[in-house]
């Protein structure tokens, strides 16, 4: 049985933040779950996926976050407790639906989980999604620890049902990817079938209806604010005159700092866990006997602006600081030492910084950037494109996936990237704005997610570009989740449809479509050359399963290669930057344990010096 389905209340388990959240959802009786995978949220949905295979919990990998939110919104309007899970930037994709869902509201509880990524460990920006609360009018809840992350999910569902609105649960990477001991509660039965009651004049958002619904939303916000004022998630610890307001993981750093600096008597901490709407009266009360106040929050000065405004309303002139020179940054994530230091500096507490060892005389340690796996088919495709366009002035708009790692030299196959799906739209812009040859790259999962509209646009507006679709049969980057093009029978799962990228592209009316097997180097180069020469929109579908995925499915059949003494040390093979290669004694070698036998290097070598390892 899946460990998160253990129905033994009181049992203690060591859980990753994302497991704790998934467990919290199960303890809340969630019935309907959906996602588009994205770090740092991915393990939440992975656990839903696994649990759905052995229980009546419904889960789907949706095409993108907007669809994930829409299916969950429908389920919640049919009376099922539902949850849509996404990373912070996924919320941008879902935002169109979210804004108006706030008008329509829900019948059963609905939670939208957004996982923010301060410091951008694995994201293209570090936007602060608390602002989605303000923008949509929906409540926002934020846990400070892994244990609280679990507890917040049932709370969020109840709040959602009280307000008849979806609730935003916002985490950050250090909640999602931290681990702690969590105590299990019991699992209630799930309500897995609902009914939809027609009510078009409250549910169909034509202008006349929406005017009424917006007024209703404002009522709900007022109600939410009253709940925030007395919520146990917004609490005060201590009675000192130095005020500290904090949220999320910062609360943990603040607590440790107060202990380390031994200032518990002097401080008073307001932890905000219900951060939209902010509890105005509670904050004004908190500020009353403070000498000065420090706001500790990662990201934007979201609470700082609110607290200052509330103080002003109340005619309170107490000094309030947060972001700014000598204090906290809007950049990146915090850590215990930064928080300790800022608290000491702001309140004038004597404090000697810990002294890290002096590393000034330590020789530079060679970089170890993540690279495409040995034998990754993306490397082969990149090589073929490079050869096919030799001598041309090119632009390579790219997209989000493992293949983005092609940005690093010596591959250097990425020139422009905004967000999921942007390769197709930006390619069209570059093709019109320049005379350079535009060849853009998109993965299969990303193509389904949001690449298709840009391609349609290119056909309609008659752009001149080549789109290379890197079809490796999975969503590799985030941990091999399925997508609409995946053969689910490989995972022994039934009841799924399957879309062919080729049919989609041809159906759209792309005038030139070709398919390559990237491990066949010569043929691939020729096919790409033809596609690039085509005037108009051409699509190259490069089909080869992700080697890591193939290995996990037991489908990797390649035998390792070796460099024989025919090698003349041109080192052309190194141009593809395969990590199975190493230089030993001035000579090129292949690590047989890493080589997957894709044979791309063997086809590149002008001396035919790379051959299969002989059987012993």
């Amino acid at each position, binding site marked *: 049985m899946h460990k998160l389905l253990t129905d033994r209340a009181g049992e203690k388990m*060591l859980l990753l933040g994302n497991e704790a959240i998934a467990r919290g959802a199960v303890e809340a009786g969630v019935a309907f779950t959906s996602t588009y995978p994205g770090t*740092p949220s991915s393990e939440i949905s992975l656990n839903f996926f696994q649990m759905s295979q052995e229980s009546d919990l419904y889960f789907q990998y949706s095409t993108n976050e907007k669809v994930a939110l829409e299916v969950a919104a429908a389920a919640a309007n049919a009376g099922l407790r539902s949850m849509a899970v996404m990373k912070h930037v996924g919320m941008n994709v879902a935002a169109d639906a979210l804004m108006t869902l706030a008008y329509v509201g829900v019948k059963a509880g609905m939670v939208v989980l957004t996982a923010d990524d301060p410091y951008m460990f694995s994201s293209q920006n570090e936007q602060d999604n608390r602002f989605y609360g303000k923008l949509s009018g929906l409540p926002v809840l934020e846990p400070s620890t892994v244990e609280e992350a679990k507890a917040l999910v049932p709370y969020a569902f109840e709040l959602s049902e009280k307000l008849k609105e979806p609730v935003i649960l916002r985490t950050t990477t250090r909640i999602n990817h931290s681990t702690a001991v969590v105590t299990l509660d019991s699992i209630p039965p799930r309500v897995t079938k609902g009914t939809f009651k027609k009510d078009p004049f409250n549910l169909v958002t034509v202008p006349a209806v929406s005017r009424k619904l917006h007024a209703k939303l404002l009522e709900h916000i007022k109600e939410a604010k009253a709940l925030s004022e007395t919520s146990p998630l917004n609490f005060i610890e201590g009675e000192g005159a130095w005020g500290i307001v904090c949220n999320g993981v910062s609360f943990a750093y603040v607590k440790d700092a107060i202990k380390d600096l031994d200032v518990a008597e002097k401080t008073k901490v307001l932890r905000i866990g219900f951060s939209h709407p902010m509890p105005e009266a509670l904050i004004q009360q908190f500020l009353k006997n403070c000498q000065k106040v420090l706001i500790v929050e990662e990201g934007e000065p979201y609470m700082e602006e609110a607290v200052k405004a509330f103080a002003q309303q109340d005619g309170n002139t107490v000094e309030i600081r947060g972001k700014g020179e000598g204090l906290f940054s809007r950049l990146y994530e915090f850590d215990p*030492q930064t928080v300790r230091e800022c608290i000491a500096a702001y309140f004038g507490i004597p404090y000697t910084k810990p002294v890290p060892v002096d590393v000034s005389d330590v020789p530079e340690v*060679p*970089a*170890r950037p993540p*690279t495409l796996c040995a034998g990754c088919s993306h490397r082969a495709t990149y090589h073929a494109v490079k050869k096919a366009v030799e001598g041309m002035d090119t632009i390579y708009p790219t997209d989000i996936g493992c293949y983005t790692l092609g940005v690093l030299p010596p591959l250097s196959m990425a020139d422009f990237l905004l967000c999921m799906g942007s390769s197709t739209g930006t390619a069209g812009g570059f093709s019109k704005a320049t005379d350079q040859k535009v060849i853009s790259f998109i993965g299969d999962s990303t193509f389904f997610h949001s690449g298709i509209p840009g391609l349609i646009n290119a056909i309609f507006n008659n752009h001149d570009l080549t789109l290379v679709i890197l079809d490796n049969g999975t969503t590799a980057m985030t941990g091999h989740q399925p997508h609409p093009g995946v053969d689910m029978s490989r995972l022994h799962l039934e009841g799924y449809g399957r879309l062919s990228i080729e049919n989609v592209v041809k159906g759209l009316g792309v005038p030139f479509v070709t398919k390559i097997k990237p491990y066949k180097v010569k043929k691939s180069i020729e096919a790409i050359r033809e596609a690039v020469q085509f005037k108009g929109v051409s699509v190259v579908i490069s089909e080869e399963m992700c080697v890591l995925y193939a290995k996990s499915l037991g489908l990797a059949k390649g035998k390792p290669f070796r460099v024989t003494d025919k090698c003349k040390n041109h080192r052309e093979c190194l141009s593809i930057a395969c990590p199975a290669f190493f230089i030993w004694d001035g000579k090129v070698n292949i690590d047989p344990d890493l080589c997957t036998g894709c044979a791309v290097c063997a086809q590149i070598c002008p001396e035919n010096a790379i051959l299969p390892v002989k059987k012993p």
Partner: protein
Amino acid sequence: MKTTRVIIVAVGGQGNLLASKVLGEAALLADVPVRMSEIHGMAQRGGVVESAMVFGDAQSSIISNGEADVLVGFEPSESLRALNKCNAKTLVITNLSPLMPFTVNIGNGVYPDLDRLQELIREKTAKLIAFNASALAKEAGSIMAVNMVLLGALIQTGTLPLSADHVKEVIRTKTKKAFTTINLKAFDLGFSAARQHA
């Protein structure tokens, strides 16, 4: 309870996430408060994987520069890279078997000299325990068990409020059945290696 902060650094694929999981489960078994955090995601693409473990009474699950009580490096150059996490009182345990970064493999960048690397760490920190953990893992039956070798060494030093019995119990019950014997042997080899190299 005293707080003990441990950083584990490794190269993707060396199994440090399993190592921290075993320690976390052992802490749960021993009723020792524990919080940990890890940065993964690109682990399988050969990048650096770092996990932080905080035992005892602390709320934070990450460790600031200069604040690690123990640094465990699964790979020597990664131990050196993580030296900024240490202070003069830190105990460092490192594997001495290098995994060449690809940059070095293709001739960009120089791998640090292993003797100099040990000298540097010894000079700057309280204590260094350095040995070839990969060789011991192979001796135990699989290079994959290098994580268990280093766990054994870590437990031997007595810096954590966890006994070898707690950790072995977790290895027996929570790691893959097929590897239990190898893992336990690897743990013991690491345990005695730390005693020898202390």
